[in-house]
């Protein structure tokens, strides 16, 4: 490799790094001009191509973001002229001005905020629009806001590159055909749409969180991608409690990434994890974000925070305990009780049962779990049966427990989990003499 070749590689790495930092903002700014995220991305890519052509010669400009944005804007204006959309755009601007005059004073003030921040927020809400499927929202968000390539997204979600490419193309087309406006929703719609955005970010996080050793390294990277998106959103919407709640939850869960698998990749349950391997920097960040969630909620008391903040508070209880034995189970029971009120579900109830079992003994927990057996949604949920098995073991009812573990094993699709369930069934004893 000659000196020139090395230089080329270095400059390309630098341009790549600049792109990772700037691309979302560029796409967002251009989308406001052309009113179409698909076109905006193409125009942004054109800017990147121009940079790749010019910067190796001229060097990276002092403000590369501004260079890319300016180049993109020229192309955007050209595009609009070519497509004779200029008049349409004037109509849209005219309507917007009228609407703004009608808007409340607070909204006008908000409209005068940092332009770049607003555009980025518009892009986030558009990529996460409910007209798209959950998968499409995730793929589009990772592409437009995460700056991931199609190949990276495919590897992260264990699918083919062509599948993701199609998914993204279709998503852009759906947004265009539905004429989804490039805007941040207001009022009651804002809360619902924000919930959708948080759902996308958490979906991405969970995809990374469930990655197992031996998987493509892009998968656990998803946790970091989701965390980054969450942190960005937290700065764009600093008064939204649930955004901080989600960030808190992700920071604390991510703190355990290094402790969740043994040396040969086998999963280690929370109670058995070596807490010295928990990342205390992330735990600290999680506590900080949780405090922000409480400060920005309607009242400082946890009763008024949303489900993400409550889940984060539960995770914080575990994070606070130096050993599993020191866990404040009574507090966790309380928090699950609050979670059951704001976001009731059989799974929350099951988790509450586990906590009740730790705080008050297995009999109390078994009563809750026995009722959950009636829930149709829980019939095929392997964890219900493994929790029941665990409680029965604690009550000395090993024979019954074995059946529950076997049932749990038959219901899980995960080979490692099945092994674990069958091992627990075996350990219940019981032989030909029973």
């Amino acid at each position, binding site marked *: 490799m000659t000196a020139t070749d090395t230089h080329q590689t270095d400059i390309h*790495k*630098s341009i790549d*790094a600049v792109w*990772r*930092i700037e691309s979302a903002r560029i796409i967002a700014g251009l989308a406001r001009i052309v009113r179409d995220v698909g076109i905006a991305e193409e125009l942004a890519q054109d800017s990147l191509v121009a940079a790749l052509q010019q910067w190796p010669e001229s060097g990276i400009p002092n403000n590369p973001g501004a260079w890319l944005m300016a180049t993109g804007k020229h192309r955007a204006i050209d595009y609009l002229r070519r497509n004779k959309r200029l008049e349409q755009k004037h109509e849209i601007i005219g309507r917007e001005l009228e609407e703004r005059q009608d808007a409340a004073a607070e909204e006008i003030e908000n409209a005068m905020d940092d332009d770049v921040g607003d555009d980025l927020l518009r892009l986030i809400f558009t990529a996460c629009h409910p007209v798209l499927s959950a998968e499409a929202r995730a793929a589009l968000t990772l592409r437009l806001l995460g700056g991931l390539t199609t190949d990276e997204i495919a590897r992260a979600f264990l699918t083919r590159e062509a599948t993701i490419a199609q998914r993204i193309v279709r998503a852009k087309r759906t947004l265009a055909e539905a004429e989804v406006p490039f805007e941040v929703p207001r009022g009651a719609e804002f809360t619902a749409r924000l919930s959708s955005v948080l759902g996308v970010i958490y979906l991405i996080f969970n995809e990374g969180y469930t990655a197992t050793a031996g998987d493509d390294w892009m998968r656990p990277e998803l946790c970091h991608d989701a965390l*980054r998106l969450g942190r*960005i959103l937290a700065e764009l919407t600093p008064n939204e409690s649930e955004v901080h709640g989600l960030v808190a939850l992700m920071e604390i869960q991510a703190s355990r990434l290094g*402790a969740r698998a043994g*040396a040969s990749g086998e999963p280690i349950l929370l109670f058995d994890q070596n807490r010295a391997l928990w990342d205390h920097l992330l735990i600290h960040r999680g506590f900080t974000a949780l405090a922000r969630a409480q400060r920005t909620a309607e009242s400082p008391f946890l009763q008024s925070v949303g489900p993400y903040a409550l889940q984060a508070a539960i995770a914080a209880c575990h994070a606070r305990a130096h050993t599993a034995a020191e866990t404040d189970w009574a507090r966790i029971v309380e928090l699950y009780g609050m979670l059951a009120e704001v976001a009731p579900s059989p799974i929350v109830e099951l988790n509450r049962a586990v906590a009740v079992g730790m705080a008050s003994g297995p009999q109390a927990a078994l009563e809750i779990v026995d009722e959950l057996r009636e829930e149709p949604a829980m019939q095929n949920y392997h964890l219900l049966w493994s929790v029941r098995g665990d409680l029965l073991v604690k009550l000395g009812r090993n024979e019954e427990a074995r059946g529950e573990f076997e049932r749990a094993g038959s219901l899980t699709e995960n080979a490692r989990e099945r092994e674990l369930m069958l091992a627990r069934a075996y350990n219940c004893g019981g032989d030909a003499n029973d």
Partner: protein
Amino acid sequence: MRFMMLMIPKGYEAAAPGTMPPAEHVAAMMKYNEQLTKAGVLLALDGLHPPSAGARVTFSGGKPTVTDGPFIEAKEVVGGYWMIQVKSKAEAIEWASRCPGLDSEVIEIRQVHEMSEFPPDVQEAAGRLKP
């Protein structure tokens, strides 16, 4: 990937205890820190008191010796750090390049070790369970 960006301010090795940077420089740095925060890449940052307020421990055959600062032989000392989470060294370098550093300041970029990089025996020593 995590990187530390170590701020090495020339002259800090001789700074008296309680030395504070000038207000405009602090303001410029705070704007930079805000950029890192808004980009979602900042994990932590801190400023350090000058070496004149600190101490050094050296070792000889397992026996420690404590020396109070300042350390006349030291030509470069750390004044502060940022820890960031990014996808590549090039990205860390790009961020460091955007710092409003003075002519007298150097930023050194160092990747942070992750547990997964270590061979199995080291990981075991750190406490992971044996298979």
